[in-house]
């Protein structure tokens, strides 16, 4: 008897923390974005080499994504933040409740931050962005200048923004 075994899939990230925030709770205050980003970053970086540097980087990136979500204004429900890490990366997944309009917006915005042309686009459009910043500009900058990966995964009534950050 023979069997075709699929090759083992690469190990996923080791989970570190999961946070659930009500959409209303996040909207209570703009400063919730940075408080949440700082808390998650500090927690994740606490046992790493040079936790202050990693905290600063992670908080900067997470805050940008949370501010984007804040402005995108999902409807009622919960935002779930799950953070894990591999040997090379910290991976944060933000699950956002979506209706059709928001799902389309996420598709459009995240589609415009592809790494292949992010730097060129950011440079070329910077002058006009200063005057009229597009919704995804903060995300674009993360990819263009900071080497962060951003992807979108879609589920049933939810969009998942995946932020992949190198440890160093």
């Amino acid at each position: 008897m023979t069997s075709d075994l699929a090759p083992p899939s690469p190990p996923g990230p080791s989970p570190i923390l999961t946070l659930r925030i009500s959409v209303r709770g996040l909207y209570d205050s703009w400063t919730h974005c940075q408080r949440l980003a700082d808390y998650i970053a500090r927690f994740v970086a606490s046992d790493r080499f040079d936790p202050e540097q990693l905290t600063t980087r992670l908080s900067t990136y997470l805050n940008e994504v949370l501010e984007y979500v804040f402005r995108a204004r999902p409807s009622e429900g919960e935002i779930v933040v799950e953070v894990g890490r591999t040997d090379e990366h910290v991976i944060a997944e933000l699950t956002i409740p979506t209706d059709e309009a928001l799902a389309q917006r996420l598709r459009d915005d995240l589609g415009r931050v592809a790494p292949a042309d992010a730097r060129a686009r950011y440079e070329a459009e910077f002058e006009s962005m200063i005057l009229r910043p597009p919704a995804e500009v903060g995300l674009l900058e993360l990819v263009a200048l900071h080497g962060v990966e951003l992807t979108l995964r879609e589920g049933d009534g939810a969009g998942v923004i995946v932020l992949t950050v190198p440890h160093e």
Partner: protein
Amino acid sequence: MENEQPFSIRFSENDQEVALEGTLRPAGPEAFAPVRARLDHAADAVRGVLYLNFKRLRYLNHTGFLELARFIAACAERHPSLKLKLVVSSVVPWAPLRFGFLGAQFGNTIVEQYDKAFYPGQGVIENDQLVPVLRTQTNIVWSHERELLRRHGLGKRMRIADICCGIGDFAVLVYKEFEPAYIVGVDHSRPFLQYAQQMAREFGITDIEYQFGDATHLFLPSNSFDFVTSRLALQIFNDPSSILRELVRICKPGGRVYLTNEMTVHNYGYPRHESVAWTYQHAVKIAQSLGMDMNFGPKMFSLLTDMGFEDVRMEQIPITNNNTAIDDFARVIESWEEYVTGELSTATQQPPEVVERLRMGFRDHVYAIRSRRGFATWPIYVASGRKPER
């Protein structure tokens, strides 16, 4: 461990500098408006160059970044002859990337990463060539310092900061001996910190925090450490008081700041003492040309006193070939010989005959250490003071 820092902006007309510190994450142009007003006021008030100091701006969101870009663009129109100099630190990891980008975008903007050259000897101090020198030094000094630290107020379960921690071995030894409640080592050399981390890992120690940082602008909270150390470090900076001010800031009222530094011309080796003396005098001059004061040790007492410390204590670690393992002592001097006649002489373009004479002096010092009839010393000065309660 640090609490969120509030945002502050200060304009010094005298220095033509706006310093932005803390966290700046505005929701939009309206929230940024007060900052913009201060920046516009500064731009109106100065001529020539306006310095924007971002050394202590830890967080800036992209909205704030775009608003700064908008200010720079407006300056180019309103003040065509005004240059903007953005002063950033590599300790804030996003800053060189973002502000470097702005520098490339705007002709009126220059970006200075100030800690690339924030003290003259940096290039010859912060590389991994120095690791063996530091390692051997700590080995030899610790046997004396271990007890001496108690006399200067170090006890168990304290919160300790080791600033300019180098390769982190002192922090490891303190950790083992004094079981601190918390200990952090800060240094501006990435190779040293990598070594420190690797060493801690190999020793199975996970409770020491190492940070890449700038000793003159620490991202550590004020009044938060019982014992703050900076060993053999102030002597290599051209502006030691700027570091000392930070050590004072992070020390708790009633806590102690502990310093060690050398008086290199006091290094002695008999019988060939003239050759030894020449070498150390000349090494001090070379170091001086790089902004270092290798005779800083005895000056600490007056420095601490002048800064208002209480209960200032000072003594000497009297390392000699009579009270120290001969091989270790000799290895320290040999590592100095290698460093001074190699890296340091190359950096300062010493002529070959000078390098040779320097080498002879170090070898004569080693001879004094190893000789049955010889006597050799390497004194280290130790000083500490208590930060007043108010």
